[in-house]
């Protein structure tokens, strides 16, 4: 097997490992790399680009709604704006940004050299990027989706929406679900097979519990969305009648399919973000997380319960009160696992010794926003009150406290926390504090009043409202707050760019963090760890000072320098089982993704030859991709 040495400063070893792991410079490297760190950073940057696009859309809407009866945009433009805004933020920002963190961090957290399927990982990224390009290309022809991010039929059937708008929607989402499914498979195999020896499943960081749970949830939830989108496309293009009541179909079929996917998706975009907090908060509290096991189990429980509450999006559709009350009760019950996480964080701060730096500010602020978003969610679980709340601005407030409070705030905390690892540079602390307070004040000023406009009876998804019925002032405050919040997000971007260029050097472990990623240099070398560590506890870098019984070994062990390999271990106990050969950089993923996109454009414009040519190309590239290597043939 591998040689055992103690070569922490062994330059020759470094050179040998680089030979296997470094991506070649030049165009081939740019498009062919399978390095999870590059892919992770690309995910993060791309997701932020989508965040900014969605933010621009939101800003235009807020100008339109600053006062009643304004006519800045037409109803058609407004409908496209809010549909793009919702779809972009939920599908192309909130979930991919967390995939970015997980892709970058996972191998570093578990002492591996890459993800389980590096080429599939590259493929996930390219299909994610291209699905977003596909979606936004709708703007070039002025036919962006306009049916809301939930695209309720029959309004979205060809009968009522003859343009390309909803074809862009359905096809872009199908393309994206391919990306997300590939990513989920990769995460699941990685967490169960690639952990460093000794890293039993109860020693992985909570972020990994979060992403593993959401990966399973995605595998079960996404088919429902894919099927719904395929049926919508068939209804629109080939005249099937899945959703046509007059033809034996039913409009509510779409709603069930959409929300069976949609509610688990809410947890998919928050559980890994909660994991970020569970892992980063202890570093700033100078102690391990309180009740690790309970938090991990609560994460999994939330993921499971998340499948049992979808009908609370449909309380006004005329379902029987008895059916409604079951889903109402389940929606109340799902509060408990979230409460467990909240109290674990508070207890961690209470029993810790907080160091108030920018990441801590974002996490402390997040806890309060999480609770506001949580309790407003409880209000919507009460079915009869929800029949009033649903489709009003109260729900708009709720969803933004969830998606911004529980996703963007932890993401900002995570960026400040891991940016030094990713770049080797510290982010600016002073600008960081400005950044936090602008975002926190702007967010609450902008989004809290939405609860009130909702309670005052203002429906959502309206391009204008009559002035003088009590909605003007509260909407003006919302608009001002939203723009202040936008300035806050801009400060985050500025801090990232500035620190990337001129940040102070970080060193391997600037925060004195406890987990494996802080054991390697910043930024890590392409092979992550020169020596594969052996893990003896949950906090390899703290265990001596905490006087824990476990003993990790970080500077001695297998170096795997002869070939491009990483270790395979058993799913639960993390016992060494095999050495895995890892694939080289390759252009197959990007080409395959491009061919797939071409096929989808063919389906969009109803060009048979483009669809067929694209599909043939996809098939050919799949065969090329899967063609056995010389080594595989030998082993067979």
């Amino acid at each position, binding site marked *: 097997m591998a040689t055992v040495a103690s070569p922490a400063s062994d330059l020759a070893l470094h050179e040998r490992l680089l030979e296997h792991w470094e991506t070649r410079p030049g165009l081939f490297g740019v498009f062919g790399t399978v390095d999870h760190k590059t892919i992770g950073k690309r995910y993060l940057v791309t997701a932020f680009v989508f965040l900014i696009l969605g933010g621009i859309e939101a800003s235009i809407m807020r100008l339109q709604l600053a006062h009643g009866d304004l006519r800045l945009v037409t*109803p*058609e433009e407004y409908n496209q704006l809010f549909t793009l805004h919702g779809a972009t933020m939920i599908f192309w920002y909130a979930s991919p940004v967390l995939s970015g963190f997980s892709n970058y961090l996972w191998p570093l957290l578990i002492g591996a050299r890459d993800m389980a399927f590096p080429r599939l990982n590259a493929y996930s990224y390219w299909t994610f990027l291209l699905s977003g390009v596909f979606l936004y290309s709708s703007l070039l022809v002025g036919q962006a989706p306009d049916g809301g991010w939930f695209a309720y039929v*029959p*309004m979205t059937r060809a009968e*009522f929406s003859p343009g390309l708008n909803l074809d862009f929607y359905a096809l872009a989402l199908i393309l994206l679900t391919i990306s997300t499914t590939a990513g989920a498979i990769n995460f699941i195999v990685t967490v169960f097979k690639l952990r460093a020896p000794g890293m039993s499943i109860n020693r992985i960081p909570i972020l990994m519990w979060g992403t593993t749970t959401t990966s399973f949830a995605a595998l079960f939830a996404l088919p429902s969305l894919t099927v719904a989108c395929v049926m919508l496309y068939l209804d629109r293009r080939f005249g099937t009648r899945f959703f046509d*009541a007059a033809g034996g179909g039913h409009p*509510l079929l779409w709603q069930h399919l959409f929300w069976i996917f949609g509610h688990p998706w809410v947890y998919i975009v928050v559980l890994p973000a909660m994991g970020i907090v569970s892992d980063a908060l202890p570093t700033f509290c*100078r*102690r391990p997380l309180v*009740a690790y096991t*309970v938090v991990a189990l609560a994460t999994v429980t939330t993921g499971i319960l998340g499948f049992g509450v979808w009908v609370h999006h449909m309380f*006004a*559709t*005329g379902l029987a*009160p008895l059916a409604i*009350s079951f889903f*109402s*009760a389940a929606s*109340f019950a799902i509060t408990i696992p979230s*409460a*467990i996480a*909240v*109290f*674990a964080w*508070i*207890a*961690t*701060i*209470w*029993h*810790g010794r*907080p160091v*108030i730096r920018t990441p801590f500010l974002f996490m402390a602020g997040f*806890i*309060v926003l999480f*609770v*506001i978003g949580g*309790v*407003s969610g*409880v*209000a919507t*679980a009460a*079915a*009869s*009150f929800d*029949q*009033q709340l*649903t489709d009003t601005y109260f729900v708009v407030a709720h969803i933004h406290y969830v998606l911004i409070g529980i996703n963007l705030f932890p993401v900002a905390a995570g960026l400040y926390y891991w940016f030094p690892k990713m770049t080797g540079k510290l982010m600016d602390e002073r600008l960081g504090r400005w950044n936090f307070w602008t975002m926190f004040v702007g967010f609450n000023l902008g989004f*809290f009043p939405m609860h*009130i406009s909702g*309670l005052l*009876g203002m429906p959502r998804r309206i*391009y*204008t*409202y009559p002035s*003088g*019925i*009590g*909605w003007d002032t509260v909407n003006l405050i919302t608009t001002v707050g939203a723009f202040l919040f936008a300035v806050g997000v801009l400060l985050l971007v500025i801090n990232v760019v500035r620190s990337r260029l001129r940040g102070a050097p970080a060193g391997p472990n600037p925060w004195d963090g406890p987990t494996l990623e802080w054991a390697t240099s910043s930024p890590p070398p392409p092979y992550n760890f020169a020596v594969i560590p052996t893990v003896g506890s949950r906090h390899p870098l703290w265990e001596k*000072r905490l006087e824990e019984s476990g003993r990790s070994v970080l500077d001695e062990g297998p170096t795997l320098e002869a070939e491009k390999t990483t270790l395979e271990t058993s799913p639960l106990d993390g016992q060494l089982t095999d050495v895995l050969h890892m694939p080289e950089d390759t252009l197959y993923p990007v080409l395959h993704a491009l061919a797939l996109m071409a096929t989808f454009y063919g389906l969009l414009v109803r060009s048979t030859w483009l669809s067929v040519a694209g599909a043939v190309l996809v098939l050919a590239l799949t065969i090329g991709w899967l063609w056995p290597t010389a080594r595989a043939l030998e082993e067979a």
Partner: protein
Amino acid sequence: MAMRSPLVLVAMLAACEGAPSYLQGRGYVADREATLGWVLLAIASAVVVVIAILVLGATFRRRPPGGDLIREGGGMRWIVIGAIIVPSVILLGTTIYSTVVLARVARPAAKPSIVVQVIGHRWWWEVRYPGTSPAEAFATANEIHIPVHQPVQLELSSADVIHSFWIPQLAGKMDLIPGQTNVTWIEADTAGAYRGQCGEYCGLQHAGMRMSVVADSPAEFTRWLQAQRQGAAAPAADLAAAGEQVFQRSACAVCHTVRGSEAGGAVGPDLTHFASRATLAAGVLPNTQGNLAGWVANPQGIKPGVIMPAVPLRPADLHAVIAYLQALK
């Protein structure tokens, strides 16, 4: 954080006159939903305040001068009490309370004697009063009259896409879905006009799909019913009579019905007693002469995307049609 108690703000703003706030119920269902809502918002506000204080307290509490890392242990009590026992008690209570409210508002104590059928269209409301015999049946649009203190059964369906019937101060939403008829009910406990609006995104003029429910005294309601059952009277004035001619021979009559005349179109709202309604264009404008002229001359200017086309009329004809419509009391 702690000082921003949502309740105070809500109470302040809910007092805003004119806003159709569902925290100020004026009907059997909305009253109970509003009480439930206030209870939930009070609990929610209390939870947020407590958590904010805990976060601040945990961060800034005095600590003995410290050494290095703090060992694991302790803290489970927080979770058992704060995250399991207390929330379970609160949630069980609210679940039971909200289920009881749901059961109470699901159907009225006695079967309503009045039935109103509401059919959603892009972007207006067709309202039918079937009565007890075909002779009593009539249709109107966008303005529903009910007698105060009496439960009224609503039968909701849709002619095109999904809409949602919603009068915030009378009851929560119920969707109008093609292919099924949803049955719900309302009962007003104070006479007056209540603003309503489509509660489910339904396309271009979702924002312009408004309506009102007018709760009349029983006597007024009976008078209204009797008036609505009549066909339109032949216009008395010359101008209005000329307007009727224009109406009949132009595109107007293709889409609209005026009972008692030859106009029998079924695409747009029934205009038999159009002038008795307080608003036009599905609650978007007060029903005044100026607004009406602007609407007929250029509907797209007022509701962009609306299905009603601009009917080209000479100024004199437009003038006459307006006079005719205003005579449809």
